[in-house]
């Protein structure tokens, strides 16, 4: 708190709004990534050839792949860093909590972004160890995505775990997509009202698209 | 009682040239020297806020004080309707002269012509200034400013920002003030109350304040003091004023030698929501515009307790339409208010307690449709429903008059200086421009005219000529004043009687409302003059206060204010008693037309009372001395108002 008027602006990232804009821009990149990732994944349903071919395609150019990976890693790092800094700010901004606190309009998703965020962060690490490096996969075959996926999701616990994680992803991005339109100032008198709905629909498509793979694999096994 | 004529220091020459003449005559302060002059501004409403900002822009060293937690909260913020200006944007024949004429006539010929003319002249600059500040006035589709008409005028000259004109104008002034605060040109003292004026060698040289958070009593020295502390309507306890509105600053200045003019001139607003119970803390105004489409009525028979919907047309008395066929429901505020009181006095009032009349929109809704009424008054209807729990689309509203504005205040000359050299009084706190009755949309105009465009000039003229010695707060006069204020504060804090401050305030308010409210008479005023000193004595003997002096103590704040109301109330009654005429908001039951078409209507006495009554404080429990400023009307001819 300052008792005086600073009189001038401060540096972009020092303000909460600057951090939120960083979160929003990295959020756009990450949502874009998960969307593409999801559409790619759906090829599992089309059989081994299709998905393995796709996986191979992605690896045609290692420099390109690593550029993309670096952008994603940087996005995650910046996103998480801003989130942690803002979360610390929140605690400092209200040192004494309310004895009673009601909620008017705030969705569960909007109030639990940090928690869904933590969960997803852990999930991403496990997911990379699971399907990218194979470190924690019990039967990992380098380059055979179809095999890796189907063997993993035969395990009902893993399949269910992935579905649950997609629930968290839905929560996180259903609010995140709306929130990033706010942070980036994409409001419009006529279309703003639709932003929440669009965000939710997009989040459902992504989450269901992802969840379709473990569910389908498990369903086929179960037959 | 002495009878001295006061000199208003009005410039010579034709009325159109007076302000130009004065501005040319005035001595100027060298721009480089302005920062060496310290000016104290008490109050941060339209008048005080605009004055503080404008003087800081000129280069003066300004200290501004307000009792609220922020200068943005002054009660100017609650004004709904609008602000008048002689722009003639509507091409409907408006002019400076017409605004001047309407204001003098509306004030029932008890205002100073030269001041009113200047107000009308300046009105056009105010609109320009406010627009430039970003005040979001209502606009037409072509992008030009919209206007509406208001009571007492036949032209559309009122500028407005929805129903929140006062708020928007105040925020404009507040933003200008904050700009100066941010730039270090104004030192703001929020939550600080002025408790005394310090006069040294006959000149105002500072004030004593109490910090409402820490309780610290402090002295502030300056080269001039400006009071923009608003009106004293809360002497009636229930009014449309904010709870904190008080007379303390002007009353204590009065006790230091500033004459108090026309204290009995108070304005009653006819369309307020009636009192619901004895816990009622304030009254809420509903915009006067409601009278454009609502019809006012009471049951024909006294003691009729049926629901409004059960009373057939034939058993309703649309008394304003009956008595004033020409103006009907749109008669001026004072006339409408008195007619409502009369109906209730006859036992025909409606609602709990019987102090209310119906304002019925059924006919308008039938004629125009509910949608149209909703568009025009939707926010007001919502407000009414929020407060009363009744839906005015289905049942008639209940309204009753309430105290709204005080035309009286500290006497000032043409330069807005009080009878204490170096102390200026602006806005509602002074008495100058509205005579015995203020027209709608004129209060905002006056506050901003004083603050933006008059005081910043006239105070320079004073400062340029008053080369007093440098004085700081260590001067003996300040020490004495601090001692006095501390003693009074300690006395109140030590008081452990049985009655709360509010109970005394309620008692005084009720008495004032009965004796010195909408209608006054000699017997009532005389009785009140006996009763008020008794209440005052009991107050000092039996009031109970919590002890905390070095912390926020809202009871102590109230107690100091009520103590002053208890003295002011007496002066108001005395002023009302000496003014043996009816004019504007001052209606003496003995002074009415006894015959002809206007039988029963207010009767002015221009031969004997065409003056402003300025009272001089003579000491505790002493009768105050009357000074008269004769009012001459060279440009507007004195006529009786007629609304039949």
């Amino acid at each position, binding site marked *: 708190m300052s008792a005086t008027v600073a009189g001038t602006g401060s540096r972009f990232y020092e*303000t909460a709004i600057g951090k939120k804009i960083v979160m929003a821009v990295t959020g756009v990149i990450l949502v874009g990534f998960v969307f593409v990732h999801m559409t790619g994944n759906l090829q599992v349903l089309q059989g081994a050839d299709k998905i393995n071919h796709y996986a191979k395609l992605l690896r045609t150019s290692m420099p390109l792949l690593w550029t993309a990976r670096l952008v994603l890693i940087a996005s995650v790092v910046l996103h998480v860093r801003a989130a942690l800094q803002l979360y610390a700010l929140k605690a400092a*901004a209200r040192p004494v909590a309310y004895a009673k606190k009601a909620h008017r309009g705030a969705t569960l998703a909007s109030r639990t972004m940090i928690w869904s965020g933590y969960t997803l962060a852990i999930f991403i690490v496990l997911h990379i160890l699971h399907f990218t490096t194979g470190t924690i996969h019990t039967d990992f075959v380098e380059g055979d995505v179809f095999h890796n996926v189907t063997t993993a999701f035969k395990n009902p616990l893993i399949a269910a775990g992935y579905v649950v994680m997609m629930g968290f992803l839905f929560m996180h991005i259903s609010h995140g997509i709306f929130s990033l339109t706010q942070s980036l100032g994409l409001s419009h008198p006529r279309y703003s009202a639709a932003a929440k709905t669009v965000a939710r629909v997009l989040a459902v498509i992504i989450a269901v698209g992802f969840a379709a793979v473990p569910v389908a694999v498990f369903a086929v096994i179960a037959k | 009682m002495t009878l001295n004529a006061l000199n208003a220091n009005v410039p010579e020459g034709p009325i159109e040239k007076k302000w130009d003449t004065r501005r040319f005559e005035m001595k100027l302060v060298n721009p480089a020297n302005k920062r060496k002059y310290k000016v104290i501004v008490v109050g941060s409403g339209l008048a005080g806020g605009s004055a503080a900002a404008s003087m800081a822009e000129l280069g003066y060293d300004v200290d501004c004080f307000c009792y609220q937690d922020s200068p943005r909260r002054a009660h100017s913020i609650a004004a709904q309707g609008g602000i008048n200006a002689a722009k003639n944007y509507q091409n409907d024949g408006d002019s400076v002269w017409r605004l001047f004429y309407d204001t003098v006539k509306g004030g029932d010929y008890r205002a100073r012509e030269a001041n009113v003319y200047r107000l009308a002249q300046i009105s056009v600059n105010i609109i320009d200034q406010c627009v430039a500040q970003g005040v*979001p006035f209502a606009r037409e589709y072509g992008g030009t400013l919209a206007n509406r008409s208001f009571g007492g005028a036949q032209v559309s000259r009122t500028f407005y920002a929805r129903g929140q004109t006062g708020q928007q104008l105040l925020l404009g002034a*507040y933003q200008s003030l904050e700009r100066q605060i941010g730039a270090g040109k104004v030192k703001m003292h929020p939550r600080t109350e002025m408790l005394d004026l310090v006069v040294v060698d006959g000149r105002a040289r500072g004030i004593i304040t109490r910090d409402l958070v820490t309780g610290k009593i402090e002295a502030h020295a300056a080269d001039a003091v400006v009071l923009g502390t608003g009106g004293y309507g809360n002497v009636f306890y229930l009014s449309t004023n904010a709870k904190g509105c008080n007379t303390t600053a002007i009353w204590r200045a009065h006790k230091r030698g500033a004459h108090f003019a026309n204290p009995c001139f108070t304005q009653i607003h006819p369309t307020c929501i009636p009192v619901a119970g004895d816990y009622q803390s304030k009254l809420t105004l509903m915009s006067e515009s409601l009278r454009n489409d609502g019809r006012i009525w009471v049951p024909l028979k006294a003691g009729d307790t049926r629901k409004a919907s059960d009373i057939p047309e034939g058993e309703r008395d649309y008394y304003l339409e009956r008595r004033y066929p020409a103006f009907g429901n749109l008669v001026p505020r004072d006339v409408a208010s008195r007619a409502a009181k009369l109906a209730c006095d006859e036992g025909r009032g409606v609602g709990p307690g019987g102090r209310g009349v119906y304002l019925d929109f059924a006919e308008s809704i039938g004629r125009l449709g509910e949608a149209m009424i909703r568009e025009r008054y939707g926010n007001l209807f919502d407000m009414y429903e929020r407060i009363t*729990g009744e839906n005015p689309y289905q049942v008639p509203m209940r309204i009753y008059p309430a105290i709204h504005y005080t035309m009286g205040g500290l006497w000032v000359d043409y330069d807005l200086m009080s009878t204490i050299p170096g102390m200026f009084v602006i806005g509602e706190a002074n008495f100058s421009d509205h005579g015995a009755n203020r027209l709608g949309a004129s209060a905002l105009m006056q506050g901003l005219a004083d603050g933006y465009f008059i005081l910043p000039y006239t105070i320079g003229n004073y400062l340029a000529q008053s080369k007093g010695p440098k004085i700081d707060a260590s001067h003996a006069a300040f020490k004495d004043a601090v001692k006095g204020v501390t003693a009074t504060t300690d006395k109140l804090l030590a008081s452990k009687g049985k009655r709360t401050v509010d109970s005394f305030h309620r008692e005084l308010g009720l008495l004032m409302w009965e004796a010195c409210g909408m209608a006054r008479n000699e017997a009532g005023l005389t009785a009140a003059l006996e009763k008020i000193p008794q209440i005052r004595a009991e107050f000092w003997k039996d009031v109970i206060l919590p002890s905390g002096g070095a912390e926020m103590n809202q009871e102590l704040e109230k107690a100091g204010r009520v103590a002053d109301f208890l003295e002011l109330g007496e002066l108001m009654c005395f002023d009302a008693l000496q003014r043996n005429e009816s004019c504007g908001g001052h209606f003496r039951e003995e002074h009415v037309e006894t015959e002809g078409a206007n039988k029963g209507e207010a009767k002015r006495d221009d031969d004997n009372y065409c003056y402003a009554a300025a009272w001089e404080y003579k000491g505790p429990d002493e009768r105050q001395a009357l000074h008269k400023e004769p009012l001459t009307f060279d440009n507007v001819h004195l006529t009786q108002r007629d609304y039949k």
Partner: protein
Amino acid sequence: MTRTFSLTLHVWRQKSAKQAGQFAKYIAANVSEHMSFLEMLDVVNQDLLAKGEDPIAFDHDCREGICGSCGFMVNGDAHGGHRGTTICQLHMRHFKDGEELWLEPWRSAAFPIVKDLAVDRGAFDRIIASGGFVSVPTGSAVDGNAIPVPKTEADLAMDAAACIGCGACVAMCPNSAAQLFTAAKVGHLGLLPQGQPERDRRVLAMVGQMTAEGFGHCTSTGECEAVCPKEIPIAFIARMNRDYLEASVKERPQANRGGSG
């Protein structure tokens, strides 16, 4: 018939910013449904005074929802949580006999407690002082109709300008953010032609001051707009963010200098 009833109040009592506070329990008896919430507290205070106790301090002034003085939490809802209503406009008919109410002050590091339910909102004034104005010295204005303002823009500006600075947005926000307050002023002035010359400078300065005051960040929960007595929408926050982004991109080293106050 007027309904009367009684309530149990748990009121936060704190002598000053420096001292610790705690809840105290009071019974409000004979509450009339026609009372406003503050009138109900007035009656409680009269009883406390009669018993020689310290009355509950709370800010209030106009008691008609426009000055912005009043405001505290009732059961975790700013101003009691009724749409478009300040606590002074909230009437007791909305409550039931025997209800238990928890009254807490606005809680934010940027709003230190003054006493009981009263807080210091000076941070809001300082945000305005940093840039929430149009620099137009008295007397330097052009004619009011010289610059046409489209009605739609003027109306939208008025929607934002309606802010009463009560602080409910900060109080209700899970992050104690002042975005809605700041955005309302940035939006109001940014929508009008008169506000354009200082548009970039204003948003940079105000956002900077908001940060310096220690307010939190916006997570777009919408809690603020739900309790805003003037129903200012969070679309204005998006607008401010866009302005801030644009101004940051355009900012030149000199942008913050000059233009003496």
